């Protein structure tokens, strides 16, 4: 672990202009990813996981605006960088695996060519070498019969294989940071395990850092070193994986763990999380956006959110009355 993190997001806030008003999608998000580390961002849908990833990649929707904060990638502030610089970095230094590979891949271009495109853009390969390198990449993501598959169109491949193509594209230039946005949603458990093993293995091989965005706590527990829990655009808790599961400190984290089906629990033991995410369009959102759903709410909860650092490095909880 080097002293300088690969990615350091500091005090990041993002707003979206909508017809219904300004949505404060992210507020004061601070976290970092170290070299070779796998960090998970977990939370319900609508908690701001993907917005965080898109902001870091510089591919935020036009309606979105970064209102404050910085995101530093190897010393470069990606939020201030010009589009030309970002184009050069994206795909080479940091790359992303999207949620639905069938949508993210170009449906009318052969998958081998799609990998070659990225290599030609960034990889200093000649036009003649590129197809060969593409086949090499297909071999690395363990696609059987790579020469033939390179000529296939995405619709000819299964969901698991399309996801492998996405991984091959993402890893083709050996990036320093991989952002995987729910890489296995919609895939079968057996395929999911194979894909996650592959990401973890290739990551370890290249010393790559990974930011995994997921709502599956089990997966985060198994593969990640550090977990960031998000709720309604806030980071509510952050801790090394083992510590987070052994001693969740934020009430929301505890509820989330209790709601996840485990091999040993019975249905009646699982507890639902009452209430919904607050409406982020409202002018007056309480400082703690979980307070309306919280059982441990106190009068101090109406004051500005505290960011209490834990004893261990990289642990933090944003709660007045933690467990």
């Amino acid at each position: 672990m080097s002293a300088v993190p690969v990615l350091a997001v500091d005090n990041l806030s993002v707003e979206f202009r909508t017809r219904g008003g300004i949505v404060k999608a992210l507020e004061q998000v601070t976290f970092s990813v170290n070299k070779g580390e796998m960090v998970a961002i977990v939370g319900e849908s609508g908690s701001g996981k993907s917005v965080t990833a898109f902001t870091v990649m510089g591919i935020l929707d036009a309606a979105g605006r970064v209102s404050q904060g910085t995101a530093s990638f190897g010393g470069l502030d990606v939020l201030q960088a010009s589009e030309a610089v970002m184009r050069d970095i994206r795909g080479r230094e940091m790359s992303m695996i999207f949620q639905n590979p069938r949508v993210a891949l170009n449906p009318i271009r052969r998958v081998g060519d799609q990998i070659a495109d990225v290599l030609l853009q960034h990889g200093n390969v000649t036009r003649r070498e590129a197809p060969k390198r593409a086949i090499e990449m297909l071999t690395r993501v363990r696609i059987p019969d790579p020469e033939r598959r390179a000529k296939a169109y995405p619709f000819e491949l299964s969901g698991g294989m399309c996801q492998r193509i996405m991984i091959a594209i993402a890893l083709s230039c050996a990036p320093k940071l991989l952002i995987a946005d729910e890489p296995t949603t919609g895939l079968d458990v057996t395929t999911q395990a194979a894909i996650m093993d592959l990401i973890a293995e290739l990551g370890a091989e290249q010393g790559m850092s990974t930011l995994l965005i997921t709502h599956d706590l089990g997966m985060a527990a198994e593969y990640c070193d550090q977990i960031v829990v998000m709720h309604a655009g806030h980071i509510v808790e952050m801790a090394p994986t083992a510590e987070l599961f052994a001693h969740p400190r934020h009430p929301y984290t505890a509820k989330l763990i209790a709601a996840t089906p485990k091999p040993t629990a019975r249905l009646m033991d699982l507890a639902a999380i009452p209430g919904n995410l607050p409406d982020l369009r409202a002018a007056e959102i309480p400082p703690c956006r979980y307070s309306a759903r919280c059982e441990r709410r106190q009068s101090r909860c109406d004051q500005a959110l505290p960011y209490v650092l834990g004893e261990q490095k990289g642990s933090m909880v944003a709660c007045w009355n933690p467990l």
Partner: protein
Amino acid sequence: MSEFFKKPLLDAQSLHKQFTVGKKPGLFAKAPKDWFRADRPVAKLHAVDDVTFTIGKGEVLGLVGESGCGKSTLVRLLTRLLDLTDGSIRLDGEEIGHLPAKGFGKSPYRPRIQMVFQDAGDSLNPRFTAFAAIADPIQRLKPLPRADLKLRVEALATMCGLPLELLGRFPHQLSGGQKARVGIARAIAVEPDLLILDEPTAALDVSVQVVILQLLEDLKKRLGMSYLFVSHDLNVVRLLCDRVMVMYLGRIVETGPAEEVFRNPAHPYTKALLSAIPHFDQVKGSGAPPVPRLRISGEPRSPIDPSPKVCRFYGRCPKGQDACTESMPLLHGVGLEHSAGHSVACHFPVSDTDRKTAAVSLIEDVA
């Protein structure tokens, strides 16, 4: 309880469904030389192949398998949305398998088998309010006068935990959990005996998933329905189901009481499935020794004109041997107690000695 299960509600015997594949010759295409032969070979995709099972009254049967294994085709056969190629389906002793799918909507059996679809958002008509969506099957299948209809829909909404003020809303104005509730209320509106649930919680967050699962459990107790619960989330299946069936490429490879199958999987595929679930006891960095994982590689075999002699899992199976290509394994009883109804279709199931040691280690764990 087991006596109760003995009289099956649904009895499916050797169901087969094959789809014809391949290009149909166009109008101006050269006719194949053997066009006059009625038995000209056509490629067939065996989507469901010799599937036999029963569902008892009040029982929850889980159906597990990866995408493309024929789960959805089986579900569509049972709900009579597709015609069978061969086999028989009996509901309460009455044969319904021969009824054509096209006219089944008007048959008296339609209200007795209902379905909750996978994505509640996609399966609701965007131009129907929640009220209209729930009232629609009642109006079609068991018509009620207007005033009674309103009371009935409100009772259903209350039963499914849907606030009455939401009944006037359209699907896009409802949250994922609320849409799932509408989907369930609509399915139980005509008081079915058998409810088929096709991944009802796949699109939901864990926090909402728990609520929906508990609602389903509660409704089953109150209304005495049987469920066929289709899912690929094994942790969810385990929570709700009495028995499970594991399906692989059109065939049932393992079936038995849920606890037994999850504790002592006998088929290598079941074992791989269970091994693929992320576990909380495997928290990274907690110092827990890593459990060796059984991973299967490769792609499934082609379901088009499969050899009737070769096990469908052959080629991906870590235990595959020559014997697996010589005769198709059939379901046979396994386990320490053969009477438990645990059976597996494998020539080399995880052996009883393996499971005895596993059982011992389990006991040690408890102690």
